């Protein structure tokens, strides 16, 4: 709301603009300062270093160069090889797959929880939240045990001919997908549940009364109301899933490089910090673009997250 808000009564007191500024500095100041110092500045430094050169022995050196970004696009020592764009696409693909799987699995679960009576509902929600806050590493290596070649799950899959006999479920793409779904499912369920909670069933009932089939009511009456939750959940799943490193590393046998492991490799064995920063900067830009898109969508719809 534009206009002079000086001397407006809020929470029992009036404050001038200066008063607001001073109070903000005392309260929001420290937190924002901390974040500026320990988040914004390092990220800017990271972007800056991506334009520097790697010394012969792995140091960071002047002069500034675009070499890292050229290499990112694909101009390497062995000729043109769009390895990193491919890597990005693969990571985006994994993110997308995880999101789709989370929606498919998350919707029924969120629906189930939302339609439970009172106290059971709280219990059900808590049960969904609890795994979320347990250690990711622990849950991931547990899948190593569950999907081990001599484990019964692998044997079951082999007998069901879901995989060629002798191929273990772990390590492999199936294990990675399973691990990702297991980790990100709660992130999708919670926003979906929040949306379903506020659902206006009368609209769905009205659609049915007017002769719509169950599928039609679902699509036209239910889904549009759930959309904000769906979008929020997708964002919470897609962006982190794209940059996920631990799960593909532990369940994929360290065979497949993705965005996260590519960055880690440059700061580990390859000791090419400038190049690692270039990859990370690109990942950062991706994330910022995603947030911007979401903000613009929210702005249009005018709804809260």
């Amino acid at each position: 709301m534009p206009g002079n808000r000086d001397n407006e009564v809020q929470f029992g007191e009036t404050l001038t603009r200066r008063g607001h500024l001073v109070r903000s500095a005392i309260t929001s100041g420290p937190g924002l300062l901390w974040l500026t110092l320990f988040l914004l500045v390092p990220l800017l430094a990271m972007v800056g270093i991506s334009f520097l050169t790697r010394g012969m022995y792995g140091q960071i050196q002047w002069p500034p160069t675009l070499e890292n970004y050229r290499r990112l696009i694909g101009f390497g020592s062995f000729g043109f090889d769009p390895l990193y764009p491919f890597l990005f696409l693969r990571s985006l693909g994994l993110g997308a797959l995880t999101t789709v799987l989370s929606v498919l699995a998350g919707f029924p679960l969120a629906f189930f929880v939302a339609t439970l009576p009172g106290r059971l509902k709280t219990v059900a929600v808590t049960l969904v939240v609890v795994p979320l806050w347990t250690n990711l590493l622990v849950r991931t290596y547990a899948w190593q045990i569950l999907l081990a070649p001599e484990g019964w799950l692998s044997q079951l899959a082999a007998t069901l001919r879901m995989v060629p006999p002798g191929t273990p479920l772990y390590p492999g793409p199936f294990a990675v997908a399973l691990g990702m779904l297991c980790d990100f499912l709660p992130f999708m369920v919670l926003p979906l549940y929040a949306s379903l909670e506020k659902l206006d069933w009368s609209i769905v009932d009205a659609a049915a009364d007017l002769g719509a089939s169950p599928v039609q009511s679902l699509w036209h009456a239910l889904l549009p109301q759930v959309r904000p939750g769906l979008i929020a959940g997708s964002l919470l799943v897609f962006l982190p899933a794209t940059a996920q490193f631990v799960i593909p590393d532990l369940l994929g046998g360290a065979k497949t490089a993705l965005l996260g492991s590519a960055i880690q490799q440059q700061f580990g064995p390859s000791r090419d910090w400038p190049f690692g920063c270039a990859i990370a900067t690109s990942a950062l830009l991706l994330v910022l673009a995603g947030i911007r898109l979401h903000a613009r969508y929210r702005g249009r719809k005018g709804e809260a997250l």
Partner: protein
Amino acid sequence: MKRRSLPLWFTSAVLYLFLYAPIAVVVLYSFNAARFGAGWKGFTTKWYGALLADSQALAAAKTTLLLAVFSTAISTTLGTLLAYGLARYRFSGKKIAEQFLYLPVFVPDIVMAIALLLFFAWLRRWLEFFELGLFTMVLAHVTFQIPFVCIVVRSRLAELDPTIEEAARDLGANAWQTFRHVTLPMMVPGVVAGALLAFTLSLDDFIVSFFTSGPGSTTLPILIYSSVKRGVTPDINALSTLLLLASIVGTISVMLFQPAKTPKNLPS
């Protein structure tokens, strides 16, 4: 349209099972007598005993706990103040600040980790104080904890009834007194929830800790990761079970501290 039907119950049961399968496996296998492999070789509690003798594990546990406590203390204070400031006061550029606040939630932790690594390396050139270790890890953890604390506290603040604060002001309290005696006590459940959340986040963090840790400041997740890389030994299962327990207790406590949807002591 049937609201709750058998297929729905069944699917949900399967999904819950799916979510809890890894946790169950780890707990189960912490009692497995087999040293290698996934076969079950009998029930034993010796791995828990072995943990107590493992100085590395104990040191990691101590580091993890110290890290969580220190970082939670700092981030809860900063985050609570931040939430209050954003909810009550205005300043130019506030919208940008709010968007900026959400950055750590979405930025991949590996990007944040290496940015911090670089920053500390650069600071080290002038101030030896920034050697990698518990200190740098606390700084890193606080950075990703603040937004989460802020979100939780802010949602609690939004549910508070402003008329109570207005009444306090009308009765003659100044801003500080109102905050101290009226607003803060009402905020406490949110602050506690935020603190517990920050604590759990710190306990479970791996990537950021991995990149900002130094010698002797290994945390439990880092220890578990190196063990997993080398081939999980059963005492790690025992360790993980204990860690899971801590996280579960923390999460349930957070849920218990979540306020009811409507404030109880008000005429509706």
